[in-house]
C-alpha cells in the first residue's frame, strides 16, 4: 500500500506547510505539567485489591516448603498464590532463545535474587506487605553461577538442568573473506573490553491493574505497556486464553526506554484476580523491586575486538567476540540486544569482511531486558575505541582514520557486511561540520599543551549509526524470525468537521500524538489543536505495535498520511456526486474538495463529511458513508534473514558524530566533561524540538553509561545496588551543555524522508566519552577498557599501573 502515501511535503494537498518540520507545542504537555495525566498508579477500580510479592533472598535455591497459612488467615487478605499455582494454571514464559523461561512465580527453585516466590492480594498495599511478613519459605541453597565465565566452567551448576549447559546460544557468523583480510593485514589491532550491567530506570516503575472476569473468562490488563499487542499475545500464550479474550489497556507511562516490562507482574495479578473471584488486582512495582529484579538490567558483556588494517589505515576486517551474561532466564527478551548490532555491525565504515562470535549464557543474575539502543551502544564503544587504538599505532588522527573508512556518500543505499541496508547518509560531511564547529585544530593544540603540563586532558571523537524502524528479522539469530511490524491509524471526521485519529499506543514522552496531529493538520489545512488523538486498547485499535526500535515517528507518519490519503479519496467520491462531476475531477486543496478544472466550485471537507454522516441516502449505493479511513503502515521491502542472519532489517540509518573534551583527575579518578559538540543527521526532522529532546536525553543516559551506572553483584550473585544511593543516575551536575548542529540527508525509503531517531545519542555518547578518557590516558600508556569508567576504576588504573 506504500504507493498511497505522499513521499514528500510537496505532495501534500496544501499550498503552504505550516506544522510539519516545526517545533510545534506538544498536545501532551498541559495535562502533564498540571499532574492530570492518568499514569497507571492513579487507577482505582471498584473492589480493587493490591498485590505484594515475596521474593527470593537467594540467587539459586531449591524451594523446600512454603507456609502461607498465617497470611491467608489475615484480615484483609483475599488471595495468596505460589509457584505451584502458577505451574498448575499457566505455561512457562515465552522466551528468546526458546525454552529458557520459568513460571511467573518460582516453581521448585529460584534462579535469581528477587525472583517472585509468593504473591498476596489484600485490600491495600500496606496490608499486603504485612502479610508477606507472615509467610515462611524454607530454601536449600544451590551452588551459584555468579558470572558469565563461571557459567561456562565444566563443573558449573546448571540454571536449566534440561539443557545440560548454561549456554543459551553460541554461534559464529562470518560475512565475507574474514580470514583472508586478517592474513593479508599490515596491522592487526586487538583489545578486550568489559561493559557492566546497567539499565533503563524510567522515573515511573512498572504497574498494572488486572482483572480476570470469571463470568466470561475475559482478562483485562491495564498497565504501562510499551507494546500492548505484543504483551497481550504473550499473556494469551502464558495464561492459556484465546487471544481475543485478553484486552490490554495501556496507560501513558513515565518513561520507558525499552525497560517497561512487567510480564511476571501481569501474570501474577491475573492469577491473584482469578483466585479472588475476579476482583481487579493492582501491582505497582516499587523502586527497590525495580532495582532488585525489574526489567531494568541490560548488557553484561565481555568483548574481544580485532581490526585488520592496511598501512594507510583502511580497515579490511573486523572480528567481534562477545560473551553476554543474560541472567537467570531469557524471559525479558534481553537477547535481542545481542542480535541488533547486525543492523549496523560495521558502524559508519565500509568494512566488507566481518565476523561475530556470539555466546549468551545463563547465570544467577536478573534476566536481561532491552534498553535504549538495544545492544549497539557497547558494540559501538568497542569498535570506536579500537579504531582509536589503530589510529595511534599508525600515527593517524582519529578524525583521519575514520574519514578513510567511511562509506562514501555516493554509495547509498549501501549493504553492510552483516546484511542490513543503509538508506542514505553523508558521514564525511557530518565529520567536517563537527570539526569546524568545535574548532578541532584549536582543541587539539589545547589538549597537547595541557598534556605537556601533565594534565590528563583528552578529546574523544566517535561516529555511529542509529538503526531506525526495527523489524523482527533483525533478531532472527536469537529466535524471533518473523518479518513485518505494522502500525495503523484511523482518521475520522465528525459531524462538526473535527478530526479524530485513533491509534493503539499510549504516550511515553516522545511527543508522538503531537506528530500525528502535525501531519493531519497539514494534510487537511487545520491546526494541530483541531485534531484529537484517541488511544484504543489492543482489541479495538487498528493493527499496531507502538514504540520500540526507533520506529514510531516514521511509522505513524506513514500511517497518518496513508489514512489521510484514503480519506481524501472517499471524500472526493462524495464531493463528485454533490458537485456533479466525475470522482477523478475532484481534488483536495487547502481543506477544500474542488473541481480541478473549476477550482471555485468547491466544498470544505467538513461539509462533505457532514453530508456523508447526515445524508447517506444521497450517496451512490456501493459507497461507504463513514468519513473515516484506516491505513496500516509497514516498512517496505524487509527480507527474511538468511542462514548467516543477514536481512534488510532496520529501514533507516541515521548517523551522528560526537566530540567530547574531558579531564581526568589524577588524584580522585573523576572525569569532568569540559566540552561537548555533535552533528547528527536523521533525515527530515518532523518536529525538531522533540528530536533535540531525544538527543539530549540520549546524551544524559550515555553519560550515565560511561561514568556512573552499574548494577553490582557480589560473588554469590547478591545484588549490591539496591537503591538510587548505589545505582547512580546522572543529575543536572553530570550532564554537559552541548553545542549541536543537524544535517538533513532524507531517507529515500520513508514517508517525508524522516529516519528513526529516538535512541539517538545513546548510541554515540558512551563511545565518545570513553575515547576521550583514553586520549587523556594515552601519554601514560594506559587504557580504560571497562565501562563505567568510575572514579574507583580510573583511580586504580592510574595508581596501580602508572609509575
Amino acid at each position, binding site marked *: 500500500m506504500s504507493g498511497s502515501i505522499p513521499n514528500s511535503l510537496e505532495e501534500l494537498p496544501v499550498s503552504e506547510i505550516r506544522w510539519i518540520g516545526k*517545533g510545534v*507545542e*506538544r498536545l*501532551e*504537555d*498541559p495535562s*502533564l*505539567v*498540571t*499532574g*492530570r*495525566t492518568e*499514569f497507571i*498508579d*492513579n487507577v482505582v477500580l471498584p473492589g480493587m485489591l493490591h498485590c505484594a510479592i515475596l521474593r527470593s533472598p537467594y540467587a539459586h535455591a531449591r524451594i523446600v516448603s512454603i507456609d502461607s497459612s498465617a497470611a491467608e488467615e489475615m*484480615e484483609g487478605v483475599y488471595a495468596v498464590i505460589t509457584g505451584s499455582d502458577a505451574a498448575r494454571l499457566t505455561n512457562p514464559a515465552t522466551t528468546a532463545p526458546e525454552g529458557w523461561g520459568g513460571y511467573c512465580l518460582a516453581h521448585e527453585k529460584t534462579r535469581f535474587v528477587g525472583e517472585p516466590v509468593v504473591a498476596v492480594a489484600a485490600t*491495600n498495599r*500496606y496490608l499486603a506487605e504485612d502479610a508477606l511478613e507472615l509467610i515462611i519459605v524454607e530454601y536449600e541453597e544451590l551452588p551459584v553461577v555468579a558470572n558469565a565465565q563461571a557459567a561456562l566452567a565444566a563443573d558449573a551448576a546448571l540454571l536449566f538442568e534440561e539443557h545440560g549447559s548454561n549456554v543459551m546460544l553460541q554461534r559464529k557468523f562470518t560475512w565475507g573473506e574474514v580470514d583472508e583480510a586478517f592474513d593479508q593485514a599490515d596491522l592487526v589491532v586487538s583489545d578486550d573490553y568489559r561493559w557492566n550491567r546497567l539499565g533503563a*530506570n*524510567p*522515573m*515511573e*516503575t512498572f504497574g498494572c491493574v488486572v482483572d480476570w472476569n470469571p463470568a466470561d473468562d475475559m482478562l483485562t490488563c491495564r498497565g504501562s505497556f510499551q507494546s500492548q499487542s505484543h504483551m497481550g499475545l504473550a499473556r494469551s500464550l502464558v495464561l492459556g486464553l484465546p487471544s481475543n479474550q485478553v484486552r490490554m489497556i495501556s496507560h*501513558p*507511562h*513515565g*518513561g*520507558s*526506554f525499552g525497560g517497561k516490562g512487567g510480564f511476571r507482574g501481569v501474570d501474577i495479578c491475573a492469577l491473584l484476580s482469578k483466585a479472588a473471584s475476579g476482583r481487579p488486582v493492582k501491582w505497582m512495582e*516499587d*523502586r*527497590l523491586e525495580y532495582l532488585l529484579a525489574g526489567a531494568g538490567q541490560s548488557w553484561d558483556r565481555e568483548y574481544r575486538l580485532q581490526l585488520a588494517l592496511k598501512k594507510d589505515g583502511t580497515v579490511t576486517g573486523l572480528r567481534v567476540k562477545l560473551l553476554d551474561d543474560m541472567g537467570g532466564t531469557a524471559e525479558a527478551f534481553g537477547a535481542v540486544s545481542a542480535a541488533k548490532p547486525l543492523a549496523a555491525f560495521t558502524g559508519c565504515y565500509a568494512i566488507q569482511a566481518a565476523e561475530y562470535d556470539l555466546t549468551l549464557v545463563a547465570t544467577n543474575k536478573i534476566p536481561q531486558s532491552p534498553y535504549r539502543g538495544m545492544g549497539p551502544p557497547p558494540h559501538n564503544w568497542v569498535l570506536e575505541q579500537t579504531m582509536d587504538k589503530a589510529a595511534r599505532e599508525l600515527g593517524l588522527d582519529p578524525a583521519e582514520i575514520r574519514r578513510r573508512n567511511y562509506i562514501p556518500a555516493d554509495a547509498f543505499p549501501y549493504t553492510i557486511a552483516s546484511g542490513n541496508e543503509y538508506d542514505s547518509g553523508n558521514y564525511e560531511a557530518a565529520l567536517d561540520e563537527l570539526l569546524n564547529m568545535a574548532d578541532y585544530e584549536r582543541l587539539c593544540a589545547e589538549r597537547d599543551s595541557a598534556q605537556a603540563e601533565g594534565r590528563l586532558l583528552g578529546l574523544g571523537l566517535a561516529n555511529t549509526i542509529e538503526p531506525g524502524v526495527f523489524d523482527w528479522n533483525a533478531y532472527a539469530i536469537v529466535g524471533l524470525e518473523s518479518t513485518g511490524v505494522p502500525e495503523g491509524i484511523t482518521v475520522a471526521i465528525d459531524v462538526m468537521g473535527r478530526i479524530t485519529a485513533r491509534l493503539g499506543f499510549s*504516550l*511515553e*514522552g*516522545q*511527543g508522538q500524538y503531537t506528530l500525528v496531529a502535525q501531519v493531519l493538520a497539514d494534510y487537511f489545512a487545520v491546526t494541530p489543536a483541531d485534531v484529537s488523538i484517541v488511544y484504543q486498547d489492543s482489541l479495538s485499535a487498528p493493527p499496531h505495535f507502538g514504540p520500540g526500535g526507533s520506529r514510531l515517528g516514521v511509522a505513524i507518519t506513514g500511517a497518518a498520511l496513508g489514512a489521510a490519503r484514503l480519506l481524501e479519496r472517499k471524500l472526493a467520491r462524495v464531493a463528485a456526486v454533490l458537485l456533479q462531476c466525475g470522482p477523478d475531477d475532484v481534488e483536495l486543496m487547502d481543506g477544500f474538495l474542488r473541481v480541478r478544472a473549476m477550482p471555485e466550485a468547491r466544498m470544505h471537507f467538513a461539509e462533505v463529511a457532514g453530508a456523508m454522516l447526515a445524508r447517506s441516502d444521497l450517496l451512490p449505493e456501493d459507497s461507504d458513508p463513514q468519513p473515516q479511513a484506516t491505513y496500516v503502515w509497514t516498512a517496505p521491502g524487509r527480507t527474511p534473514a538468511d542462514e548467516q542472519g543477514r536481512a534488510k532489517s532496520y529501514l533507516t540509518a541515521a548517523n551522528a558524530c560526537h566530540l567530547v573534551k574531558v579531564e581526568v583527575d589524577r588524584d580522585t579518578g573523576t572525569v569532568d566533561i569540559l566540552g561537548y559538540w555533535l552533528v547528527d543527521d536523521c533525515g527530515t526532522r518532523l518536529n525538531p*524540538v*522533540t528530536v*533535540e*529532546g531525544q*538527543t*539530549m*536525553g*540520549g*546524551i*544524559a*543516559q550515555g553519560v550515565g553509561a560511561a561514568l556512573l551506572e552499574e548494577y553490582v553483584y557480589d560473588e554469590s550473585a547478591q545484588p549490591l545496588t539496591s*537503591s*538510587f*544511593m548505589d545505582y547512580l*543516575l546522572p*543529575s*543536572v*551536575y553530570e*550532564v554537559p*551543555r*552541548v553545542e549541536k548542529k543537524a544535517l538533513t540527508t532524507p531517507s529515500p525509503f520513508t514517508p517525508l524522508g524522516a529516519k528513526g531517531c529516538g535512541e539517538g545519542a545513546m548510541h554515540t555518547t558512551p563511545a565518545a566519552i570513553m575515547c576521550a578518557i583514553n586520549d587523556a590516558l594515552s601519554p601514560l600508556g594506559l587504557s580504560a577498557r571497562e565501562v563505567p569508567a568510575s572514579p574507583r576504576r580510573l583511580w586504580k588504573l592510574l595508581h596501580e599501573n602508572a609509575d
Partner: protein
Amino acid sequence: MDEDKPARVAVTVTVNGRRLSAELEPRTTLADFLRVDLGLTGTHLGCEHGVCGACTVLLDGRAVRSCIMLAVQAAGHEVTTIEALANEGELHPLQQAFVDKHGLQCGFCTPGFIMAAAELLERDPDPTEQALLETLGGQVCRCTGYEAIIESVRDAAEKLRQQGVGPLELLAAALEKNAAPGGGE
C-alpha cells in the same frame, strides 16, 4: 483482633488552601495520603526513598519529599501540590515555561521539578547558576538531559520578575477562592 490493627490518629492539615481532617494509620506516608486519600495524583512516586524528588510538594512553602514524610508530620501545616498551580485552566508561569521550553518529555518527574523550582523562585527570584543547580540537582529526570529544564526555570523566573510576583504569591488568591465556602477544589 482490634489491638492487632494499627491505631488510627486524627490529622488536620491544610492542603491547597483547604482545611481537611482525616483519621489515618500513623504509618501512612504524606504521598499516599495525598494520592490515595485525597485523590491528588499529580504528586508522583519515583523511588520512595527520597532520592529522585518526583514526589516533591511544599510544606509551609518549603520543598519536601512526600514519600519519606509521614502524613501525621504534616498535621497543622499547609501542603501545596501541583494541583494548586494552574488557575481556572490557565497554566502557572512555571508550568507554561516547561511547555514553552520543552522542559519535559514523559512528564512523570515534572510536578516534582516544578514544585522544587517554585520554592526556589519564591525565595530567590533571580537565582544564580549555582543556586539553580543546587535546587535542580536534587531532582532526577531520565528523559530530557536537564538542559531544557534549566531553560524552563530561567524562563519562568524572567516572566515572574516581569510580573513582579513570586510563584507562590500568585497562588494565594486562587487558593483563597478555593478555600472559601462553596469554592471548587
